[in-house]
């Protein structure tokens, strides 16, 4: 193997890692947007709350990292559930207003976190065996990034299972396709929306538990993820598979562009490509089933 093949292989692997991060960030948003049609601008802050939940669990109770991940899910899902009950529920017929209201929510969450935990960076401890680098034939990747790739696969399997193999999933899909008809069959659509929102928020919490290790934990850490996650969802069209494909495509492209140019221009180029792509396919790769309200 000469050097350039190694470089290309390296950047493809790195692209896969970037893709897994995109997907983990976008998966909760995909569910919330794809089923409830809510533009949740507070998604980044849900991620941030997930990271802080892990930090708090570790710092105050000494909970091991792997146990922190499901705890982050539960905590952020609960917060999401309350926000849905208090605010989002009243705005389902005004999609633009959900966008604005959730932006207000994100301001409150950032500042609230800052008041409680302070604005200095926090760090999450991870198990030692994930801190190493794995090398294979000149290709190297941090073990934790490989863990994130597997986590992305696990999460998407989990979501697929919930959506297609459980009663709750059937109800969600029924409400997404036709709310009135679902209601006529005795499904409490309000309740379904609340739990869907909480589920999506919980997944963002898991994302935060993972990203808190990759980056330092700050009250503002969510801001960077929300735009990226939205681009994935919009490009994917709101469906789970669409988001997965969009993550892999943009992740790999970004990694390849970054190898040729540099990181910033790679990101800029991706943005431009997405704009051009949406010009020709505004509904995204795979549009979410059913009529949108």
């Amino acid at each position: 193997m000469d050097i350039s093949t190694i470089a290309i292989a390296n950047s493809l692997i790195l692209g896969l890692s970037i893709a897994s991060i995109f997907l983990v960030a976008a998966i909760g948003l995909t569910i919330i947007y794809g089923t409830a049609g809510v533009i949740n601008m507070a998604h980044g802050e849900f991620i941030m709350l997930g990271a802080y939940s892990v930090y708090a669990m570790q710092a105050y109770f000494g909970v091991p990292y792997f146990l922190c991940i499901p705890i982050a899910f539960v905590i952020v899902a609960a917060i999401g559930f309350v926000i849905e009950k208090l605010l989002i529920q009243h705005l389902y017929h005004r999609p633009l207003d959900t966008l604005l209201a959730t932006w207000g929510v994100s301001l409150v969450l950032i500042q609230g976190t800052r008041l409680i935990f302070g604005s200095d960076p926090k760090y999450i401890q991870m198990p030692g065996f994930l801190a190493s680098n794995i090398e294979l034939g000149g290709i190297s990747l941090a073990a934790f990034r490989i863990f994130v790739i597997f986590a992305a696969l696990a999460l998407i399997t989990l979501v697929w299972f919930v959506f297609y193999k459980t009663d709750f999933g059937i109800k969600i899909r029924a409400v997404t396709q036709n709310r009135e008809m679902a209601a006529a069959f005795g499904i409490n659509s309000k309740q379904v929306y609340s739990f869907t929102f909480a589920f999506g928020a919980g997944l963002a919490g898991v994302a935060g538990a993972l990203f808190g290790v990759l980056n330092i934990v700050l009250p503002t850490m969510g801001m960077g993820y929300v735009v990226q996650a939205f681009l994935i969802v919009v490009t994917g069209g709101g469906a789970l598979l669409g988001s997965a494909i969009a993550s892999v495509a943009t992740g790999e492209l970004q990694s390849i562009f970054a190898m040729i140019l540099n990181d910033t221009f790679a990101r800029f180029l991706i943005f431009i490509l997405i704009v051009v792509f949406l010009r020709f396919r505004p509904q995204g790769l795979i549009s979410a089933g059913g009529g949108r309200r």
Partner: protein
Amino acid sequence: MEKNLYHNKKLQWLTYLVVFAVLGSVPLITDDAFLLNQLATYGVYGLLAVSISLCWGSGGILNLGQGIAFGLGAYGMAMTMQMQSQAPGTIPPFMANNALEELPIFWEPFWNTGLGIVLALLVPTLFYLVFGGLMFAARVSGPFFAIMTLAILSALATVFVALQPYTNGVNGISPPGALMIGEVMIDPYSSLAYWVVFALLLFFTFAAKLLNQSRFGLVVRALKDDPERVRFLGYNVAVYETAVYALSGLMAAAAGASFAVLTQYVSPAQFEVGFSIGIVIWAAIGGRNSLLWAMLGAFMVQGAQSYAGDAFLNTWILILGFSFILVVRFLPGGFAGLVETILGRVAERKETEEDFDLESAKGATK
């Protein structure tokens, strides 16, 4: 005949005149240089809020990336001012620090003040025309469009940071001198600077108001309610949307250029997502459907931030966030909507009283 005084056009114009008369009389009352500069900056924020009200309130195009035109306009003006203080043939110090030997080609036009200002306004407007044209022709609208503007905004911010040798990266450009137009210096701490911003605000607000009341404005408002129906009536919706979006871009660019004159500083912070969404918050709290109220919203929020914000530094963002949530939840029309409702109630009561008088005068017979 309109019963609700809020919808009375003559009264609306009168309110606009009164508000602007008050704003225009400020330099006659005070000559505190710091206050004038601060109020002029509020004027810039007001202009931004008006521009958002035009495209969001009238056209229904939620634009979370108004910082694009604002930032580009500010950079254009800062570049013009930088070159004014530059001896011919030299390059700005930060370029030399970044190992550039010659002036980059796209800086050349800014030697000429007039051309520089025109570019500061034209480049953002053209950008909006192209980007808006692409998006609206593809019928990207509503939340999707909002997300796309946000994406472009953050992309621009990263590019301006990355192009360190050409834009001085995160540090931004701080021209050493005030803007000179011919022999006249626009000192940012003077009543002249205030008048300039005031004139821009006056011009653009009244132009937007006239536009809203024109046939063009009628079509724009119609497409906000139902673009599909407007399309069926034979209008090219994309053209109208692009036009409104680009016009609001021009206003934001003018605001950006004035901002650079007032602060003598520009940095990628002007492209911050939080700032652009802040503009939307001003317009929403004031009332996005009214140009004037959107502008007042900017004054209220920014004023409260400067004066109340110092008192509870940490809780200010919390207060802003909560009030924004409450406005969206309970007052979708902002303060303007509140005033409209109250005036409507008053008109209704008057009407029923009149009816009652009429009935009793007739002897209440049917």
